[in-house]
């Protein structure tokens, strides 16, 4: 309060800027939500505090700061539902756990169907979600109109119905990164920014160190949590991953008064929309359909995305877009993440998050910390390993990934 009344000049940094040491117990590459959460749970739940999180840019500056802040667990397959609902439950207590307000707002996520046949498949999906023990409710067009008065049900692709997960919602993505960073730092974790990993030291199939732009570091165990750059880091460590990196776009309008108190999404017309606490209409869903590491998107995709929104909510046609950006998503063939061990001993990975990594941050950190500490996959991620591709045990969540690829 005193700081707020004195021109905000007296705030102190909430985490340290330590020197990079030569040796750690665990080194985590990438200080996004997943990397920071992994470090936090390693320190808090497993007592491993001699941990460094290396970040080539700035903390939370990759996909953690580029997503549209959605948290939901409306997944089709039991393994995914169990994992993502664990994440949602951790989100529900995250502000208290981290003593940092992540501004979770469980305003519901509504998925629309635009044809009779799509409604049939949504019905199957909504039922599967309930069987998985997660909440979902089918909605008629009338109920949708009541929930979202601005929606135009008679659009080019008319709205035939939908389903809602009411516990789903949005939270503040920067707060999640900062909350985990502060809490991990307080437990002794070193967060090293501006430190890019340039290579792995591997002897006899076992990783012993990394080369970075700030020098060499050795450790017992290493973890790769680098979202869109997973293929690049895997190549440095000498193995291949089934990932294609693509630029997923999002954009916000100028801020307006509250008019949309839920979130809705449509996979047929590639669009999802919500209103932020600042009043901006947050729009996303379009990915440029080719491999890209450029954190910007093409204008053709923006046009498609905006056209889809305006057909459903014509009133938004008067808004101007304020910002548009892209994050590099690491898409897997079954749109399920790749978590756990790698072909290199003592090297773990958490990647392939594709278009939905943000919602998984708490559970991703929790389960990876367990996996690293015990050298064995956490039961919730036992089916998410890289070896599933060789076994043919894919978990096809193309429908639930929220974006049609």
């Amino acid at each position, binding site marked *: 309060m005193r700081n707020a009344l004195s021109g905000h000049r007296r705030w102190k940094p909430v985490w340290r800027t330590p020197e990079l040491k030569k040796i750690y117990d665990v080194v985590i590459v990438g200080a996004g939500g997943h990397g920071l959460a992994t470090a936090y749970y390693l320190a808090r739940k497993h007592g491993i505090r001699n941990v460094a999180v290396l970040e080539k840019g700035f903390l939370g500056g990759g996909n953690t700061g580029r997503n549209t802040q959605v948290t939901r667990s409306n997944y089709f397959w039991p393994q995914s539902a169990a994992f993502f609902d664990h994440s949602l439950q951790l989100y529900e207590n995250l502000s208290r756990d981290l003593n940092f307000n992540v501004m979770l707002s469980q305003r519901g996520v509504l998925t629309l169907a635009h044809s009779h046949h799509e409604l049939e498949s949504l019905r199957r999906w909504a039922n599967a979600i309930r069987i998985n023990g997660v909440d979902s409710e089918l909605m008629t067009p009338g109920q949708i109109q009541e929930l979202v008065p601005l929606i135009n049900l008679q659009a080019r692709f008319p709205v035939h119905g939908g389903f809602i997960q009411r516990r789903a919602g949005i939270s503040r993505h920067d707060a999640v990164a900062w909350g985990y960073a502060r809490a991990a730092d307080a437990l002794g974790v070193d967060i090293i920014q501006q430190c890019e990993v340039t290579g792995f030291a591997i002897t006899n199939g076992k990783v012993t160190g990394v080369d970075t732009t700030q020098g060499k570091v050795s450790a017992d165990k290493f973890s790769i949590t680098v979202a869109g*750059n997973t*293929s*690049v880091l895997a*190549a440095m460590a000498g193995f*291949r*991953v*089934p*990932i*294609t*990196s693509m630029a997923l776009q999002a954009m916000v309008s100028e801020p307006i008064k509250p008019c949309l108190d839920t979130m809705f999404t449509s996979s047929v017309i590639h669009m999802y929309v919500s209103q932020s606490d600042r009043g901006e209409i947050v729009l996303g869903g379009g990915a440029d*359909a*080719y*491999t*890209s*590491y*450029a954190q910007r998107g*093409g*204008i*053709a995709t923006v046009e498609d995305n905006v056209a889809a929104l305006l057909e459903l909510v014509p009133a938004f046609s008067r808004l101007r877009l304020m910002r548009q950006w892209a994050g590099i998503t690491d898409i897997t*063939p079954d749109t399920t993440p790749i978590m756990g061990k790698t072909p290199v001993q003592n090297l773990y990975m958490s990647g392939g998050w594709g278009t939905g990594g943000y919602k998984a941050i708490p559970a991703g950190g929790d389960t990876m910390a367990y996996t690293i500490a015990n050298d064995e996959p956490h039961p919730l991620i036992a089916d998410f390993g890289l070896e599933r*591709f*060789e*076994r*043919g045990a894919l978990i096809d969540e193309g429908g639930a990934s929220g974006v049609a690829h």
Partner: protein
Amino acid sequence: MLRISCPYCGTRDEVEFHCGGDSHIIRPAPEVSDAEWSDYLFNRNNPRGVHYERWCHVFGCGQWFNIARNTVTHEIHAVYRMGDAAPDLEQ
């Protein structure tokens, strides 16, 4: 917006094309191990830099061809036909 030179129709906008992903994938013999088969099915070159990829001019001639494109700058270094070897862009 990418401007892509179709070898058959000339330079057109990206929206006329469809990207088919990683090119030059060779199907192994059926008796290979599960690991090699899964590498063929699922693993893809996904470089941060020059990528050799297939594109199809779907809203044009409908022909497939190859492109060597930088995935960071999106600069197109070469366009070549299906069946041609990937150009060496090292120099």
